[in-house]
């Protein structure tokens, strides 16, 4: 069923009783042309496989319910304010796809390009942000360096004269913003399902069958599923799943926390990041402030964090916006990160024929979803990378061609 103003009106006038199921709940078939593991980026991958490459006899396996993984646990920010050419072109492609996604999927993904401001607090930081902004503009991405007065117009309640971290200005990407994360899941699921993709929920991969160096299929909690091509898009658990195929990855699992306050009237119009610590914030359409900070900093699969980071985030938030002090936090949670050794993602073939890998998404997976899906679909269908993901090869570590946006070296908890 195609959604439109007319369908909304018709169903609204008839008691909203005519809306059908949005995607099927099929039983897994014994074999597919391709199987994608992971119902986040995997959904986008399946959608583009069906749409761009005509592969419709495919399945997406999700170990929980749809949207229960990182795609439903993030802070919904989209941006392409990257400095290195490899990252920049890729995330800018994602931004372009975000801009047309609602029309493409015929689903309101609530893309809100409200602008992202990276506030800076010192002259050296101004130089660093100017450099980043110039790098972005050279690559054709929008960036503006805002003066203190320009920032004051946007954030009049910020603490501009903080004794330690006075606000000197900000780097702004006007096209950055937020997207409704659940709508991305539902939109891709519906659009993929319409094209014949089987979305199989509550189906966890327990083994990967390889014979003579070629993939044969995956063992799952719902039986063996044969496929000549298997794509792993299981960021957070990539090391565990890749280990089933005997692959060791340059990845550590880490935890990052996020928080939501009680609902407020409109307060913060943009996405804002604090430059002197780890704090970023946006306001959801429901009114709650959605914010977070740094990784907890130690290996973890627990999907929950610890108090030092909660304190650190609160301190950063209050240094920027003292008026947040009396807000109550409604809930907090943590996401499971695939931290790669250079802070950039990996999308590549493996040494096993027909086994493809998309992992290492660090804390930037959500914003990449459309481009990740599009590129991974191309890789799986054509057995060759498109131009965008050539810098993201798995062997770049051995070649010394790392993409270290933050310049931290092989220390994942610092990226």
């Amino acid at each position, binding site marked *: 069923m195609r959604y439109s103003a007319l369908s909304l009106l018709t169903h609204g006038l008839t008691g909203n009783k005519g809306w059908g199921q949005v995607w099927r709940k099929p039983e897994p078939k014994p074999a597919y042309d391709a199987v994608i593991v992971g119902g986040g980026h995997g959904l986008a991958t399946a959608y583009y496989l069906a749409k761009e490459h005509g592969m419709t006899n495919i399945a997406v396996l999700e170990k929980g319910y749809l949207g229960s993984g990182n795609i439903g646990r993030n802070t919904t920010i989209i941006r392409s304010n990257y400095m290195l050419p490899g990252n920049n072109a890729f995330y800018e492609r994602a931004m372009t796809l975000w801009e047309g996604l609602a029309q493409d999927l015929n689903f309101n993904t609530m893309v809100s390009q409200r602008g992202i401001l990276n506030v800076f607090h010192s002259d050296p930081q101004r130089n660093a942000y100017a450099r980043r902004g110039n790098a972005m503009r050279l690559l054709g991405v929008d960036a503006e360096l805002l003066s203190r007065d320009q920032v004051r117009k946007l954030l009049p309640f910020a603490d501009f004269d903080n004794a330690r971290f006075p606000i000197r200005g900000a780097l702004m990407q006007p096209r950055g913003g937020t997207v409704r994360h659940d709508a991305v899941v539902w939109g891709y699921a519906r659009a993929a399902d319409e094209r014949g993709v089987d979305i199989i929920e509550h189906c966890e991969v327990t083994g990967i069958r390889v014979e003579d160096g070629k993939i044969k299929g995956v063992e799952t909690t719902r039986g063996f599923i044969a496929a000549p091509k298997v794509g792993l898009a299981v960021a957070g658990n990539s*090391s565990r799943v890749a280990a089933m195929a005997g692959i060791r990855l340059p990845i*550590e699992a880490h935890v990052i926390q996020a928080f939501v306050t009680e609902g407020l009237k409109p307060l913060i119009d943009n996405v804002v990041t604090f430059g002197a610590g780890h704090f970023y914030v946006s306001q959801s359409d429901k009114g709650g402030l959605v914010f977070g900070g740094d990784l907890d*900093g130690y290996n973890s699969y*627990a999907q929950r964090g610890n*108090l030092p980071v909660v304190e650190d985030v609160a301190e950063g938030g209050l240094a920027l916006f003292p008026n947040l002090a009396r807000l109550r936090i409604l809930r907090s949670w943590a996401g499971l990160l695939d931290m790669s*050794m250079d802070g950039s993602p990996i999308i590549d073939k493996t040494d096993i024929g027909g086994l493809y890998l998309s992992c290492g998404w660090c804390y930037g997976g959500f914003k990449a979803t459309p481009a990740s899906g599009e590129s991974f679909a191309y890789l799986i269908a054509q057995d060759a990378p498109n131009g965008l993901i050539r810098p993201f090869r798995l062997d770049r570590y051995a070649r010394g061609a790392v993409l270290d946006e933050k310049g931290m070296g092989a220390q994942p908890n610092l990226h």
Partner: protein
Amino acid sequence: MRIKCPYCGERDLGEFTYLGAADPKRPDPGSADAASAFVDYVYLRENPAGPNAEFWYHGGGCRSWLRVVRDTRNHEIESVALAKPGEGKP
């Protein structure tokens, strides 16, 4: 999460800094396969979901390097000992 430092006793997580897995052993730079062994040492990780041997630095206390075995699924700490020279990374 609290870590029981052998010198200082049980202390808050905020006093400690994490380095990473304790099992990678620095390869011999003179060996024939040194180049690939160093790629393995610097970049590849076991990343277990379960007990993980790792190094922590007690910067807010005795400034000792500790070798901690901790379950990455629930943050339960199995053992804490002072890191010994030649045992791993630092």
